[in-house]
């Protein structure tokens, strides 16, 4: 019982029993409910659809598995196309988030501390309200009869020649709507890591650059921008990864003709009851997202090394 460690620098975690409980409980949970399910998905991707319940089966003899779904992944244009649309939409949304979020984050660092707190709260507040409702709010704005759409129409008609006039814009069920709502929903994920990064930057570096003859925009280009790259990468991945697998936004405001990959997975699984195909697309999507993640880790490690004194 009183088996107290005699090692120098003994810490409370030196005791075996403590260690085991602390490590094993969460580890076992994640293996049971995260790793095993994902292994099932991988295995499922090599099965074939069947009429029984659950609707899949393996080949009765060697090699038991088949690659038919993987071949279909590349032969059926639906999958390639939806992957491309997903990445394209996610990339555009990420870029727009960066273009809007960067000046915002930088702007926050330029006001006093209490104003910073208020602004951050104002940016996080919509994020704490329901995601669905934020998407819903835009549905209300984008309809042809909505004041927003009408306002855009009036402005547009005032600018263009009369022959180009329109009675309203088709915003709903377009790729444009998907990107717009994704920017709206994910913008805080860009602003917060950027702010965290920019806020830590030493203002005397800006002064030093200015002292050495740089005008404000040169200071930004030479000092602030290069030093905020880790923040840009973090924010970019926080937007890009969930955006490329997004399901809710494309199903509510997207066009059925240009499906995003998340929607395809759901359709294969739900209405088509093609579980092996759904699993295959899921595995493919995950592989696509692992690449940026590995890049991210690489950059993180490098930033960590550069930051150390």
């Amino acid at each position, binding site marked *: 019982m009183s088996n107290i460690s005699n090692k120098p620098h003994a810490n409370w975690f030196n005791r075996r029993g403590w260690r085991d409980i602390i490590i094993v409980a969460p580890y076992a949970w994640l293996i049971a409910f995260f790793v095993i399910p994902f292994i099932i998905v991988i295995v499922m991707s090599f099965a074939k659809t069947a009429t029984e319940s659950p609707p899949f089966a393996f080949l009765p003899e060697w090699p038991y598995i088949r690659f038919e779904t993987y071949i279909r992944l590349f032969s059926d244009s639906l999958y390639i196309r939806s992957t491309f649309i997903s990445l394209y939409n996610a990339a555009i949304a990420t870029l727009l988030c960066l273009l809007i979020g960067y000046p915002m984050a930088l702007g926050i660092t330029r006001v006093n501390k209490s104003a910073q707190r208020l602004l951050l709260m104002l940016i996080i507040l919509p994020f704490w309200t329901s995601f669905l409702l934020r998407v819903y709010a835009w549905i209300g704005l984008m309809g042809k009869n909505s004041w927003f759409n009408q306002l855009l129409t009036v402005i547009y008609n005032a600018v263009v020649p009369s022959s180009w006039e329109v009675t309203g814009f088709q915003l709903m069920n377009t790729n444009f709507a998907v990107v717009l709502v994704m920017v709206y929903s994910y913008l805080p994920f860009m602003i917060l890591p950027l702010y965290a990064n920019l806020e830590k930057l030493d203002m005397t570096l800006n002064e030093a650059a200015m*002292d050495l003859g740089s005008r404000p925009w040169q200071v930004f280009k030479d000092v602030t921008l290069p030093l905020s790259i880790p923040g840009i990468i973090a924010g970019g991945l926080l937007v890009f990864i969930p955006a490329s697998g997004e399901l809710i936004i494309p199903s509510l405001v997207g066009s059925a003709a240009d499906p995003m990959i998340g929607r395809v997975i759901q359709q294969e699984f739900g209405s088509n009851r093609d579980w092996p195909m759904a699993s295959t697309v899921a595995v493919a999507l995950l592989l696509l997202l692992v690449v940026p993640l590995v890049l991210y880790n690489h950059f993180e490690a490098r930033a960590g090394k550069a930051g150390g004194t």
Partner: protein
Amino acid sequence: METEEQNTESSKAGFIRIESVTKKFSDFVAVDNVSLDINKGELFALLGGSGCGKTTLLRMLAGFESPTSGRIFIDGQDMAGVAPYDRPVNMMFQSYALFPHMTVSGNVGYGLKHEAMTPAQRQDRVKEMLSLVQLSHLADRKPHQLSGGQRQRVALARSLAKQPKLLLLDEPLGALDKKLREHTQFEISNIQYKMGITFVVVTHDQEEAMTLASRIAVMDQGVIRQIGPPSHIYENPSSKFVAGFIGSINMVGGEIINVKGDTVEVLAPTLGHSLQVSTSSTFSVGEKVSLAVRPEKISISRKRPATTANLLKGTVQDFGYFGKDSLYRIKLPTGHLLSVNTVNAQRLSGEEATATWEDEVYLTINRDAAMLFKGDA
């Protein structure tokens, strides 16, 4: 327009001219109506404690702050409304502010990007600067791969690269350890001498100011208390504040009891004795004064000296041996403690040479060594 000749002649003195400059931050007056002339090629120090306004004054010279009122001229040019990037002034920051994403030569060459130079000229200048601070071998390192002293030298090289008319140094030795400081302060003086650039150093460290600067301005609460060469400020402080701020000092209250030419006799109750002090100021009998003596200006001996003038007797209360010198705290019969500093010029052996705890000692204060300030201590 003046001709070149006239200009250099007239601007040698008052190369930097600060005219009744005041800086307020809302209610707080950081710099209060300061006027100051700094000569061309001078190494000038602004010395003071934290919050005395020295850094604010420096930042106004660099252009990061603008005066609430008053004007600043550099080489005859009014600096009002001139942005930091348009001033012929460079600064070495206290934190060094090296760009962490650039190499040493990238840092040193950064300011030259804005000069009309060919890439080759720029490269030559960077090399020249790096050899000046003896860092040529580290040109491709990043700041985080350098030691504190090396970073300090990169910062110095970077701020000198543009050959500014005025170089500002904010606590240039503050982050260095003691050994390195001594080495570096001579290096800075040498570089300043070689390049002939006007340096303004801000520091809270009086030793740093005294070894570096040719002239010092002592600042307190936004006001300049005294300006002069280090020796002058040390030996002839104009006020009790300056006397107390620069070096250590014994200060007691007293009263003038006799005036004879330029020598006055002061009765100091805390010393239990009267002292003869020579002074250039005029005092009248009965006037209250403060009497100040620096610890190293008091001589200490275990044998009774021949003279009886300005002789005090006491016992050694405390004693600290620092190698090159020793510090004593001597308890007078009145109970007052006096600090006395002696230089250990000879190698001491045995007990006979130094006084130690509880020893009875005699103190003599030369009449030229003591200083008098009007008003009570």
